[in-house]
């Protein structure tokens, strides 16, 4: 009954070599992370690349995992929120989000943090306007934006 052949994709996720077996290589990376690898930091928000909740780093760049066919990830380095930092060794953006209490429901926080971390890596000393522009395609419905901006600026000042 199957029309597709299972295929294995090997990649590096959070520094660890993993392989995911899929019957549809067009399946977005997000589902492999959440359901096959148990990494639920990235969230499904829209499946359209509009909201940012699913953001991960692929070879250091912030990308929307809801749009990336897993079959195209072979050999790539993927980092999720879980791999960005830990309570013992937090990424400066994660530490700043705690310091500024920049989370309400937190469903968007994955995208806010992953997008900001990639942004600060290429723009270490941004202006507030640059932070706002960098996050212009990340949606939050609780209204954490003022604190998110403060957190990113705090992370930049302490990096």
């Amino acid at each position: 009954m199957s029309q597709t052949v299972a295929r294995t994709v090997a990649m590096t996720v959070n520094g660890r070599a993993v392989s995911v077996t899929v019957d549809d290589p067009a399946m977005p990376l997000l589902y492999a992370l959440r359901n096959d690898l148990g990494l639920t930091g990235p969230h499904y928000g829209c499946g359209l690349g509009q909201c940012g909740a699913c953001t991960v780093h692929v070879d250091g760049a912030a990308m929307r995992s809801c749009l990336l066919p897993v079959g195209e990830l072979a050999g790539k380095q993927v980092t999720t929120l879980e791999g960005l930092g830990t309570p013992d060794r937090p990424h400066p953006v994660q530490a700043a989000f705690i310091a500024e209490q920049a989370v309400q429901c937190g469903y968007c926080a994955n995208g806010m943090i992953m997008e900001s971390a990639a942004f600060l890596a290429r723009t270490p000393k941004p202006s507030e306007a640059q932070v706002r522009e960098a996050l212009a395609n990340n949606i939050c419905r609780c209204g954490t934006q003022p604190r998110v901006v403060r957190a990113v600026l705090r992370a930049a000042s302490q990096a």
Partner: protein
Amino acid sequence: MDGMALSRRGLIQAGGGLVIAFAAAGPKPAAAWTEKPVALEQVDSFLAIGADGRITVYVGKVDLGTGVRTGFAQIAAEELEVPLDRVAVVEGDTALTPDQGPTYGSLSIQIGGVQLRQAAATARAALVAEAARRVGLPAEALRAESGAVVAPDGRRLAYAELVGGKAFSLAVDPGATIKPPEQRRIVGRPVPRVDIPDKVFGRFRYVHDLKVPGMLHGRAVRPPAMGATAEAVDEASVAGIPGIVKVVHEKGFVGVVAETEWAAIRAQQALKVRWSAWAGLPDQAKLWEHVRATPVGQRQVTSEKGDPAAAIQGAARRLSASYDFAIHTHGSMGPSCAVAEFKDGRLTSWSASQATHNLRKQLAMMLGLPVEQVRCIYLEGAGCYGRNGHEDAAADAALLARAVGRPVRVQWMRAEEHGWDPKGPPTLIDLRAGLDAQGKVVGWESEAYIPKGAGGNVDLVAADLAGLPKESLLSPGNIVHNLAQPYALPAVRTVCHRLETTPFRPSWIRTPGRMQNTYANEAFLDELAAAAGADPIEYRLSVLDDPRGREVLERVARLANWQTRPSPRRDQTGEVLRGRGVTYVKYELVRTYVAGVAEVEVNRRSGDIRVTRFFCAHDCGQVINPDAVKAQIEGNVVSTVSRTLLEELTFDRSTVTSLDWAGYRTIAFPQVPEIVIELIDRPADRPWGAGEPAAAVVPSAVSNAVFDATGVRLRSVPFTPAKVRAALQGA
């Protein structure tokens, strides 16, 4: 002091230990699915102290992302005299927590927290009494401190030793003494939220992350026209997708179940269904004519004083205006999600429902099960600002799980969330007023056209589509509040025309009715102030007696460096005009006071409005956690600026057409205003809500600021650039 007598008896009967929970919980219905006491009047319903001295708090109100979990922990830790990190909170589990009502209406602290506080105060008194009995001293000689009762000679009796692992078995004492403000160490402080570290490290477990053994993945296939029925379902159209378990079809309810989430999504997209035609929605271009023509079920007078019609008729100056407010979607960041499992004829439903105790009844009704056979467990989802799609996802999951006999997880896709969550109904308000020769209001009349119903259950989509039992109520929330005036006007009549129908299944979205009614009232009042040539704040103060109301207005004036003068400014040239506008609300006329000032820039060529700064003075009585209250105010302002400037559902005659974030625009970071907040804390008073009231002041503050900048009055939310340009051209 019945409660205290009862508590002593309960402790003494236990003879040095305390009676264990199930023996002492009293008779309960034979089939009630509870795992511990849950009655509102019992201490054990709210609190348990483990053998390790750790405290578990049980609350029926849930944390929807607001931080109220931390607030509950603060309240319990304060009254019990234990360190905050020793308290865990269990929320919204029908088998474990008391039914404190849905988590809506800004009542979690005001109702839920106050009930918890009384239970904790009762427990503390009982612990002290038990310790007193053991050491043979009067209770007054002992004090509770850091999880123990301490005697004058320094002996410490740990709570774990006094009650650990056992039940209190005593009634909540309404007279139990609450700690006075000067003795509080945890409540009133900006303690960090307990959930945030897990959320920033990807370790928090949302309902979306729940996995149950044997769990399958389901998706509903919704009709392309909202009222259509599935005439034929072609199961062969998805047979080629690996992992398909079942196609489910019950009248208009169609769903697929698969071994993997991706297979369920592929099947949802691929399933061929022949749907009947349906085009029962009104023409969006004529929405307000449709609202005016909708049959009225009830005329509800919400305030009446004097003879405003005669006063207006005889007034030196008469004004009238109509205000409308668009249909809004909740637009939750994370589409609704739930897991359902049937075991031994009983259903367990995990969801992010704000009202698990009500959902239990709704699921039981839909499925024809006794309520006692259903357990609903809350797990946090994406931020919830009212009754959104969570309950509907729970119904989808329950129907699919019943059909396949295994646990099923359902998560809605984005288009389902935007299309099928219940909507904030369209609101239309007509106002009339008369002024005397000095510009004073002599009469005020308003008429709101809003759907009938209140804050009851919103029918489940699956029950509706499948033709299964449902309550068939309209439940838009208590949307009549705040049409009545907070001001001392000589003659007033406010009327709600409660409409028999409304285009979409309605529900409450953050500040339901209070926002729309305050918007119309406070913008129209601004029109009267302008007609009178008065400063908008002075005009309000001239008719406001309430001292707490006057205080928030006076404070926001100072905070915003308000320059006393009438609106509009009329002193600006150039493309970008700047203005300021004020609004005041006393929430539901009985609680939280808010005054807000919006500062705007209006581009008169493009019609773009930018809210640059928003000032807010806020009095919600006692503040449990000032940083959490500020976060709620910020959220209210940001999300309501979004609603005011951008948000509007679009639809054709068959269905919603604003099905993603491009079609339903919301605020982006560059448009977010700077927010300046002044909190008034009244530690000796009762706490009121903060999750909604500040939202009520935003739309009219913006309308008033645009008027101040341009001299043009906006009366139709959202204030889109096209409406601004049209208004400017018509001026």
